[in-house]
């Protein structure tokens, strides 16, 4: 039984709302103090919220633990507390071993300094000693593939080069415990693959990793154990596939729903878009879908000027920005029929076992095809995630690794069999 390297008990973090907008000035504070000294001392019941509440967990040496949950669930807050960047409000944590955190790409980089200088600066900030950086310098430059430009100031780098160098430095950290937050959401597909590979390498060396990501596919690939956080509390803690299923069931939508008032609804004098949402066959708006289940995208729009032919169309994009498909409403009920005034809800169904795992964004538009008049066109309007819970009846069958592909249809196979050796 390997040693416990991270232990937390009742860990909590409370924030005061509006703390970041420090429009407070020293002069105001002094005036307030002069007017009512007691009021300044009294802690008012300010608007507070708990970003993290009563989190108790144990992480063993060598475990690769995934932290998943919606935005605002508390994943980054937990990492920040374990990284000692912010202090907990309640509870405690104990960590055995050196911790290094990767909460962003390019920590400490300064535009005026060269790639070489930034490698040393960032490496040192992230926790490497100068000797360590000397030793790994050539490896880092090779991983980043920027050999010729290493002595140019970083402000001249393209964003791709910047990310590659920043990640190359971070990838060569050799901590006992590594805390990673969403850093894999940067760079092109090929680079992301490289980064994931490097992370796997780190995990195989027996390091303990806590990995936060929206990319459930990456989490599923790297992590044997997962913790699902919601509203700052631990909802589920267990083997990845179990937690993933719980994630699917608990998903409450925010980015899967977008609504507008009449005043700011996109559109023109003919059509106004009022709502776009992603939902399950049961009608529930959701942000996450099981790969086997159909996904419905609703477009709710108001027609103000009658008599036009309108074709709603939906464009789907994957995480890399690749267009998966464009589909135009060919529902015979309205096709070729001038639309009367009223509210329309057009739904397009993406069948289950069709899309691959991953994060998809939706672009919604309504066009009059004959004149190519686009009444509204909203890119990145809603998004949803497709998760394969690896129960065995999706297209990946028993394979647990990464599968490429933008789509993952469950296609029919036929096999014939003849007994005995053939010549």
């Amino acid at each position: 039984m390997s040693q416990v390297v991270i232990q937390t008990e009742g860990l909590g973090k409370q924030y005061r709302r509006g703390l970041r907008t420090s429009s407070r000035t020293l002069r105001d504070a002094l005036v307030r103090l002069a007017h009512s000294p007691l009021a300044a001392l009294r802690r008012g019941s300010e608007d507070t919220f708990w970003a993290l509440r009563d989190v108790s967990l144990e992480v063993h040496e060598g475990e690769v633990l995934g932290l998943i949950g919606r935005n605002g669930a508390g994943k980054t807050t937990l990492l920040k507390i374990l990284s000692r960047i912010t202090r907990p409000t309640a509870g405690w944590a104990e960590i055995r071993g050196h911790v290094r955190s990767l909460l962003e790409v390019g920590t400490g980089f300064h535009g005026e300094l060269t790639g070489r200088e930034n490698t040393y600066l960032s490496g040192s900030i992230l926790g490497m000693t100068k000797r360590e950086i000397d030793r790994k310098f050539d490896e880092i430059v090779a991983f980043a593939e920027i050999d010729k430009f290493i002595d140019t100031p970083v402000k001249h780098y393209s964003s791709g080069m910047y990310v590659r160098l920043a990640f190359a430095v971070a990838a060569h950290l050799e901590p006992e415990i590594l805390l990673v937050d969403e850093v894999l959401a940067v760079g092109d597909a090929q680079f992301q693959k490289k980064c994931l590979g490097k992370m796997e390498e780190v995990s195989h060396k027996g390091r303990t990793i806590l990995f936060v990501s929206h990319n459930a596919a990456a989490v599923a690939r790297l992590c044997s154990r997962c913790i699902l956080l919601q509203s700052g509390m631990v909802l589920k803690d267990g083997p990845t596939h179990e937690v993933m299923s719980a994630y699917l069931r608990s998903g409450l939508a925010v980015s899967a729903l977008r609504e507008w008032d009449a005043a700011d609804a996109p559109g023109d004098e003919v059509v106004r878009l009022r709502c776009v949402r992603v939902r399950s066959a049961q009608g529930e708006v959701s942000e996450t879908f099981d790969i086997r289940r159909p996904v419905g995208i609703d477009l709710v729009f108001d027609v103000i000027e009658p008599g036009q032919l309108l074709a709603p169309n939906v464009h789907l994009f994957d995480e890399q920005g690749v267009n998966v498909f464009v589909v135009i409403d060919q529902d015979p009920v309205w096709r070729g029929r001038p639309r009367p005034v009223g509210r329309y809800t057009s739904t397009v169904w993406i069948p289950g076992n069709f899309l691959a795992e991953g994060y998809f964004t939706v672009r919604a538009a309504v066009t009059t095809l004959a004149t190519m008049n686009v009444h509204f066109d909203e890119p990145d309007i809603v998004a949803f995630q497709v998760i394969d819970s690896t129960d065995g009846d999706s297209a990946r069958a028993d394979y647990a690794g990464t599968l490429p592909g933008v789509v993952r249809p469950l296609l029919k196979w036929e096999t014939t069999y003849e007994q005995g050796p053939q010549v």
Partner: protein
Amino acid sequence: MSVTEAQLAPQSSGVSLVRIAPPKGWFALDLREAWNYRELLYFFVWRDIKVRYRQTVIGVMWVVLQPLLTMGVFTLFFGRLAKLPSQGLPYPVFYLAALVPWTYFSQALVNCTNIVVENQHVITKVYFPRLLLPVAAVSSGLVDFGVGFVVMIVLSLSYGVPLTRTALLLPAFVLLALLTALGVGLWTSALNALYRDVRSIVPFAVNFWMIASPVVYPSSIVPARWRWLYSLNPMAGVIDGFRWALTGHGQPPGPMLLVSAAAVVLVLVGGLIFFRRVEGTVVDRV
């Protein structure tokens, strides 16, 4: 944060055990931890110096030009025209001997005030003892000070003011200036993280501070009755002492310097405590 770190020698393979919990009352200053991060301190100072000297040639020359120009203006208006006393020294030497340490101090203090907020991107992403930042801020100015110091020696010698043995004490006064800048800077950088207008108040206050220090006049013009109050200003001791060590003129350090030094220690310790208290919440506010 009440952190108890049972850590063996840095970079050893011994296990480090860290306990993270909400702060209870006062806390250990934990300077040993800051010592373990000394390499990072070096990189912060190195970064500031590299970036500053990567500027244009004029930018680099400004290190020398600024005190020289100020000295010129002072010599003309306070010296030739107003005829303020100068302890028997030629005016340029009198003023420059004060301006070099003063420029170091005022820039170190301004840098220190801004440094935490300027590095907000780094402190919200990585842990290191935040104390490193103010210390780096007051240290990176030493390079500029070194350049100004050389110019000052050259000027002094060219005016026929010889260096005496007292010059060996110059580093002590520089150290006092550094500790003053650090002590006050710890307060102002923590306050600046809480209240963003501190950043503009400090340069304004520094101007007044200069007048309260014996930069354009010798401290001998302060009536003896008030001199103890005057010497609560640590920079009074620094400037007087600096001039005396460099030129041999003026009063040798005495009780006034002790009062100054005591003031520095108080401000420094208070600043350390205040800074550490605010440190944890800064990240939640930037």
